[in-house]
C-alpha cells in the first residue's frame, strides 16, 4: 500500500507528464499496450474455458493439467525469447517448411516478430496466460458442482460445450475474478514478453517506460516516474472496462441460455478448438526447444533445421558471468521459497477455521498483482531508498516475497484448512502436546502441498524481472535480468543463453518437487496430495 502511495506522490509531476504526452508516437504506444493486453486476455480466457470444458467432458483433465504445467513453469521472458526464435523470419517455424514448401533459400524480409500490430506479442501472451487461467479455473472447479450441472444439461439435450458456457462458466467466472484481473493488468503493463516480441518504433507503453527507467540520462527518469502514474490509470480503466464488458457477456450468455437452442453435434466446433489448443501447445514446446538450439549453436545457416555445428562459443563469453548469475538466481529462489513458506505456514495455521479470514488475507496479498508492476515497484523503490537498503540482496528478496506470497497463500491456506481438525483432537486425547501434534500429525499431512509450494515460490522468484531490476537498483544480476537486458539490446543469442537458465531452473525445481512428492508416503493412499 505504502508503495502505491509513494508512487502516486512522486509521479504527480505536471511538467514530466506533459513531456510524456509530447513524446512522438505516444498515442500508438498506449494503444498497442491496451490492444495487445485486452485482446490477449479475452482470447486466453475464452481458450481456457473451452479447454477446461473439453477436458472435463472428455475426461482428460489430468492430461490438460500435465500439458499446461511446463508452460506454467516457464517464465514469460523465456517463452517470449523462445517464441521470438521460433517465429522470426530466420526462425525454427520457417526452417521446418523451407525450402521445400516455401522456396526460401534466404530468410524472407518479413516483420513477423516485433510486428507493428503486436500480433506476435499477442500470441505469446495468449499462450502463457491460457495456461495460467486453465490452472485458475481448474482450482475453482472444486467450488462448482460442474459435473452435476453438465449432467443435468445433457439430459435436457444440450451438448457439453453449450452447457459449460451457459451453466458452469458463469459460476466459475465469479471464482477467478482476481486472477483474471491480474492477467489483464499484466497483459497491458508487462515488459517480459513485450521486450522480445512486442512492436518497435514505437514500443508498447510499458517498454517505453522501461527504456526511460534504464536510460543512463537521469533527466529522462522524471518522465518514467510520471509514466508509472499513467500506467496505473490505464490499469484501473482497463479493469473497469473489463467489468462492464463482463456484464455484457453474462447477459449474452443468459440470452443464449434462455433461447433454448441446441446443436445436434458440437463435433466440428470441438475439433476446431482441439486443433487450436494443440497448435498453441506445440508452439510453446517449440519455443522451449528453440532456446536450447540457439543457445548451443554456432553458425546456423538459414534453411537448415538444425544448427550446422553445436558451439560453446557463447558459453565461453557467458560462463564467467553465468556462474555468479546462476548462483544469485538460485539463492534468491531458495530464500524466497523457504522464507515464504516459513511465513505462510503459521499464518495458515491461524486461519484454518475461518474461510472468511482466509479469503480476506488472500485478497490483501493479491493486491500487488492487481497493480501494474512498474507502478507498484517504483513506489517500493522510493521506500527502499528512504530505508537505504535499495540495491541489496535483502531488498530484492523482499520484493520477490511480495510476488510469491499470494501464490503460497493460495496453495497452503486451503491445504491446511482441508486437514480434518479431528486428527489433531485424536492426538490430543492420546496425550500429545501441541508442539508434538504439529510435528507428528499436521506437518506430515502438509508435506506434499508444502513441497509444491516451495517449488512454486522458487519458480516465481526465478521468473521475476522487474522486481529484481527495481529493488536491486540494477546491481543484482539474475538470469531474468540478464536475459531481458540481452533481449532488449537485440542480442537473441545471448538472451537465449540466459533464457536456458530461466527455463531449466523452474523445470528442474518442479520435477524435483513432483518426484519427491511421489516418493513421500508412496505406500499411504490416505495422505492428501
Amino acid at each position: 500500500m505504502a508503495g502505491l502511495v509513494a508512487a502516486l506522490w512522486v509521479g504527480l509531476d505536471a511538467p514530466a507528464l506533459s513531456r510524456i504526452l509530447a513524446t512522438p508516437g505516444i498515442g500508438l504506444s498506449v494503444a498497442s499496450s491496451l490492444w495487445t493486453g485486452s485482446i490477449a486476455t479475452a482470447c486466453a480466457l475464452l481458450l481456457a474455458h473451452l479447454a477446461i470444458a473439453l477436458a472435463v467432458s472428455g475426461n482428460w483433465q489430468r492430461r490438460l493439467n500435465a500439458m499446461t504445467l511446463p508452460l506454467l513453469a516457464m517464465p514469460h521472458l523465456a517463452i517470449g525469447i523462445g517464441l521470438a526464435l521460433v517465429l522470426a523470419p530466420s526462425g525454427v517455424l520457417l526452417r521446418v517448411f523451407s525450402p521445400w514448401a516455401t522456396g526460401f533459400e534466404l530468410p524472407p524480409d518479413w516483420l513477423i516478430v516485433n510486428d507493428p500490430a503486436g500480433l506476435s506479442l499477442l500470441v505469446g501472451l495468449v499462450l502463457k496466460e491460457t495456461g495460467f487461467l486453465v490452472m485458475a479455473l481448474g482450482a475453482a472447479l472444486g467450488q462448482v458442482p460442474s459435473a452435476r450441472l453438465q449432467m443435468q444439461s445433457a439430459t435436457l439435450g444440450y451438448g457439453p460445450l453449450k452447457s459449460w458456457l451457459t451453466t458452469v462458466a458463469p459460476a466459475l467466472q465469479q471464482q477467478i475474478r482476481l486472477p483474471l484481473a491480474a492477467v489483464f493488468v499484466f497483459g497491458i503493463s508487462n515488459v517480459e514478453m513485450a521486450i522480445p516480441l512486442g512492436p518497435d518504433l514505437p514500443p508498447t507503453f510499458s517498454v517505453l517506460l522501461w527504456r526511460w527507467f534504464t536510460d543512463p540520462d537521469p533527466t529522462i527518469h522524471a518522465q518514467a516516474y510520471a509514466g508509472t502514474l499513467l500506467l496505473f490509470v490505464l490499469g484501473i480503466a482497463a479493469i473497469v472496462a473489463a467489468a462492464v464488458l463482463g456484464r455484457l457477456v453474462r447477459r449474452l450468455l443468459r440470452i443464449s441460455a434462455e433461447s433454448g437452442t441446441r446443436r445436434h453435434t458440437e463435433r466440428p466446433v470441438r475439433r476446431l478448438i482441439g486443433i487450436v489448443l494443440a497448435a498453441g501447445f506445440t508452439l510453446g514446446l517449440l519455443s522451449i526447444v528453440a532456446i536450447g538450439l540457439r543457445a548451443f549453436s554456432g553458425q546456423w545457416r538459414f534453411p537448415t533445421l538444425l544448427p550446422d555445428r553445436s558451439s560453446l562459443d557463447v558459453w565461453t563469453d557467458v560462463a564467467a558471468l553465468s556462474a555468479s548469475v546462476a548462483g544469485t538466481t538460485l539463492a534468491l529462489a531458495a530464500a524466497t521459497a523457504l522464507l515464504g513458506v516459513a511465513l505462510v505456514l503459521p499464518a495458515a495455521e491461524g486461519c484454518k477455521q475461518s474461510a472468511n479470514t482466509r479469503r480476506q488475507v488472500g485478497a490483501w496479498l493479491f493486491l500487488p498483482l492487481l497493480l501494474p508492476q512498474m507502478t507498484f515497484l517504483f513506489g517500493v523503490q522510493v521506500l527502499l531508498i528512504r530505508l537505504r537498503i535499495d540495491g541489496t540482496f535483502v531488498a530484492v528478496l523482499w520484493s520477490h516475497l511480495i510476488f510469491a506470497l499470494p501464490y503460497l497463500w493460495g496453495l497452503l491456506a486451503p491445504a491446511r484448512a482441508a486437514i480434518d481438525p479431528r486428527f489433531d483432537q485424536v492426538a490430543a486425547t492420546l496425550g500429545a502436546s501441541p508442539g508434538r501434534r504439529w510435528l507428528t500429525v499436521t506437518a506430515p499431512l502438509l508435506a506434499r502441498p508444502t513441497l509444491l509450494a516451495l517449488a512454486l515460490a522458487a519458480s516465481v522468484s526465478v521468473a521475476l524481472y522487474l522486481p529484481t531490476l527495481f529493488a536491486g537498483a540494477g546491481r543484482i544480476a539474475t538470469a531474468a535480468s540478464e536475459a531481458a537486458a540481452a533481449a532488449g539490446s537485440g542480442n537473441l543469442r545471448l538472451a537465449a543463453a540466459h533464457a536456458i537458465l530461466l527455463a531449466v531452473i523452474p523445470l528442474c525445481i518442479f520435477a524435483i518437487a513432483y518426484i519427491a512428492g511421489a516418493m513421500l508416503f508412496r505406500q499411504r493412499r490416505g495422505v492428501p496430495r
Partner: protein
Amino acid sequence: MMALDIKNLSLRINGSALFAPLSLRVEPGTVTSVIGASGAGKSSLLNYLCGILPPEISAEGSVRLGSEDLSELPPQSRGLGRLFQDPLLFPHLDVAGNLLFGLRAGNSRRVRRERVAAALASVGLDGFAERDPATLSGGQQARVALLRVLLAEPRALLLDEPFRSLDDDNRRLVRELVFAEAKQRELPTLLVTHDQEDVIAAGGAVIRLQTPRQRDTANA
C-alpha cells in the same frame, strides 16, 4: 479406577444454552448412554470433556475424575480416551505407527513393537502392523482406532457414535469388543448415540439431552 463426575454443566453458544444444566456420574466399569436429537449438544458435551470445545461455545460447571478437577487441564493431560464417529487413523503412518503413537512412552523399541503386535493379535488383526490404514475395511479400522485409544491407557472412555459407520455384523462385533474392554479395565464410559441397539447393549443409565425449550414443553 475412578468415577467420572459431571456437575451442573451447561454449554452456551452465543448466550443460549444447548441443554439444561447436566449432572451425571459414571461409575467405573459401567456405560452411561447419552441420547438426544441432532444439535442437542451431544458432541459438544464430549468436546467439553476432552477440553477441545471451540471458542464460540462457553462452559459452566465442572468435570472430575475421582477427586481430580479436569476442567482446567489441557486436553493432552486429561487422560480421557475418545473414539470419534470415524476411525481417523493417521493416514501418513502405518497401522503399527498409529498404535505406537497411542502407546505410552517408555520401554525399548522392540518391546513397544511387541506390545503393538500382541494388541493387534488380540483383536484378530495379526500381521496388519505394516499395512496402510487406507487399505483396511471399516471394521478393521474401527478396531485399530480402539486399540490406539486403549494403548494410551485412558482413565475413562468417551464414545461418539463410534459404531455408526459400520455395517450390521461389524457393528455388533466392535460394540461387544469395546464394551468388554471397558468393563475389563473398569473404565467409566460415556456413550453418545442415536442407535437404540447401542443403548440396550450398553446396559447402563440413559440420559436424554434436551434443549431447555423441549424441557419446558415436557413439564407443561
